[in-house]
């Protein structure tokens, strides 16, 4: 890259940013990272599809066309149909909704749990800290998939029975939707797997920021603890957390697909990319179009989240802030 090019693109943004603040600096740095910018496009598209997909699909994701089972891609069915005659393209679009809701909800739950546990451990220290670290160690020592399988096998039946009882007691239609049981279990399992990571990250951040000079200076100025936490500790802990959340979202989506692939995730008839891949795998030699669509989506999204996380890491890394 020549000097002229740098001057033409990066410098203007950075000069602009230096008059403002560190967040703008970070955004400028992110914008200068090509891979991250490329990665943002599919991620934005994914969220758009998740929000509006069902309105865009040419067919309902459940609609079966028995005259065109296992049809190859055509102008009528862009990505062909599966063995029940359902439009693959529509199912992929709807699957984005599953992926995004799993990513968002499970990340949100594990982030909240991790924030609370991590802040308590980091700020209170002592026995609370030891307990939290022990809990995270214990959770992390169990293989993720095994944990998900155990949760699914042990909790699914009682939860469904409880919903049935609630329906009989309240006659509320909500409790008939057993479809929700799967989602709740998947969210729960993912949150359980992911919270220790966030808790440890936040604990470490708080431990390191607590001993920074500006926190000491703020205490020496008589600022109350709550204000120090919200104005001094948490904002300075955000950088690595944002990176972790970005990576965690992609990770949660992949894990959900893995669960579904193994049959412990989202169950039929809700479309899930993992489930579609596992179904498609059975006849990929004769009907490769069943596998290609969801597999490509999965790959693109996974790589995009990895690139974005990497770009965010470079942009938000406090070691580079300096001065």
């Amino acid at each position: 890259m020549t000097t002229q090019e740098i001057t033409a693109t990066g410098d203007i943004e950075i000069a602009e940013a230096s008059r403002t603040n560190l967040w703008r600096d970070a955004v400028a740095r992110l914008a200068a990272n090509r891979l991250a910018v490329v990665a943002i496009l599919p991620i934005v598209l994914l969220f758009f599809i998740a929000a509006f997909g069902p309105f865009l699909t040419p067919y309902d994701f459940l609609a079966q066309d028995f005259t065109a089972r296992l049809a190859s891609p055509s102008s009528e069915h862009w990505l062909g149909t599966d063995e029940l005659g359902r439009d693959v393209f529509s199912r992929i679009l709807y699957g984005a909704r599953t992926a995004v809701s799993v990513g968002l909800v499970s990340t949100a739950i594990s982030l909240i749990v991790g924030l609370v546990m991590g802040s308590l451990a980091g700020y209170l220290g002592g026995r609370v800290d030891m307990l939290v670290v022990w809990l995270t160690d214990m959770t992390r020592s169990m293989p993720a998939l095994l944990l998900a399988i155990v949760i699914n096998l042990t909790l699914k039946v009682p939860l469904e029975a409880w919903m049935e009882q609630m329906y009989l007691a309240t006659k509320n239609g909500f409790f008939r939707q057993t479809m929700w049981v799967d989602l709740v279990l998947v969210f729960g399992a993912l949150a359980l797997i992911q919270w220790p990571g966030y808790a440890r990250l936040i604990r470490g951040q708080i431990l390191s920021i607590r001993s920074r000079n500006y926190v000491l200076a703020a205490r020496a100025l008589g600022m109350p603890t709550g204000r120090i936490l919200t104005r001094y500790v948490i904002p300075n802990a955000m950088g690595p957390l944002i990176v972790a959340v970005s990576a965690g979202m992609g990770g949660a989506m992949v894990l959900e697909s893995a669960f579904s692939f193994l049959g412990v995730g989202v169950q039929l008839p809700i479309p899930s990319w993992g489930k579609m891949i596992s179904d498609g795998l059975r006849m990929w030699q004769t009907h490769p179009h069943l596998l290609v669509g969801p597999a490509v989506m999965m790959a693109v999204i996974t790589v995009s989240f990895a690139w974005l996380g990497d770009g965010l890491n470079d942009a938000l890394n406090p070691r580079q802030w300096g001065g």
Partner: protein
Amino acid sequence: MSVLLDVQELQTRFQVRKGYVYAVNGVSFKLEEGETLAVVGESGCGKSVTMLSLVRLLPPAASIENGKVLLRGDDLLQIDQRQLRDVRGGQIGMIFQDPMTSLNPFINIGTQMSEPLIYHRGMSKKEALARSAELLEMVGIPDGEARLREYPHQFSGGMRQRVMIAMSMSCEPAVLIADEPTTALDVTIQAQIVELVKELRDRSGVAVIWITHDLSVVAGIADRVIVMYAGYIVEEAPVDALFEDPRHPYTVGLMGALPSLEGDTGTRLTTIGGSPPDLEDLPDFCPFHTRCPYSIDRCRTENPMLEPVADASDRGHRAACWVDIREVEVQSNGAGASS
């Protein structure tokens, strides 16, 4: 003048794996209204820990075991957290060694400066910002109002220390504790910061405790000096008396290590050989005796108390030493060479 701050028998220790490290061992001193007190000593001698103990800003491993810190009669070691927060910033301001990391990088200067004003003085955001702009100009940062919107990384080290000083002085405290505020700055900026604090002190009448290991700064700013070693005060004197007539061998050693602008430029600066003792036990001997050219048998068995020195020009001149060093010929080639 009346006594503003009266520290009595302060003891602070740190818990470590093996037991304790005794950092501050029965330190007592008084600070009068408007006075500037310098605290000198080498790294790890307990200067900073003493000052952090005054406002209970110690790290979790440290605990204050004994003592009183009377600020206008109130014991700061007894008051509750709420009152303590009012004292911090409100009555005792502090500035620290490293200005590069003493400001929150996420909040602009104006917001950061106005927080103590809002909190301690009950100002509105607008009043606090206006006052902050005045304060910036007062500490020599021109165009204060515009700079309020800037962030710490847009300020140089010296500027940030000026901001820190402005913040710590913003609520007009009675005491300003400056913990080696010039150590991390280059020499020309150091002089500016010293001048700034002197100017602010003379204008506001704040009492200053200036922690340093730079004796040349002490000569320029202090009224009185405390010399600390291994968690003890080993000598206390008005600044002139200390420089003209030092009575503790450690002080003599410090003076000998100081370059002079006058005098014979051919002489070598002396050093104090050895290193300070580990403070894992309270010593029952003079902590300096292993490095002291004047040491006698008694130094190895009994730790001297801080007592008024003989033939002092000032009643406040005290030292903790068994030997009257004026009467002794130094045998070794140690620290006494320059006296």
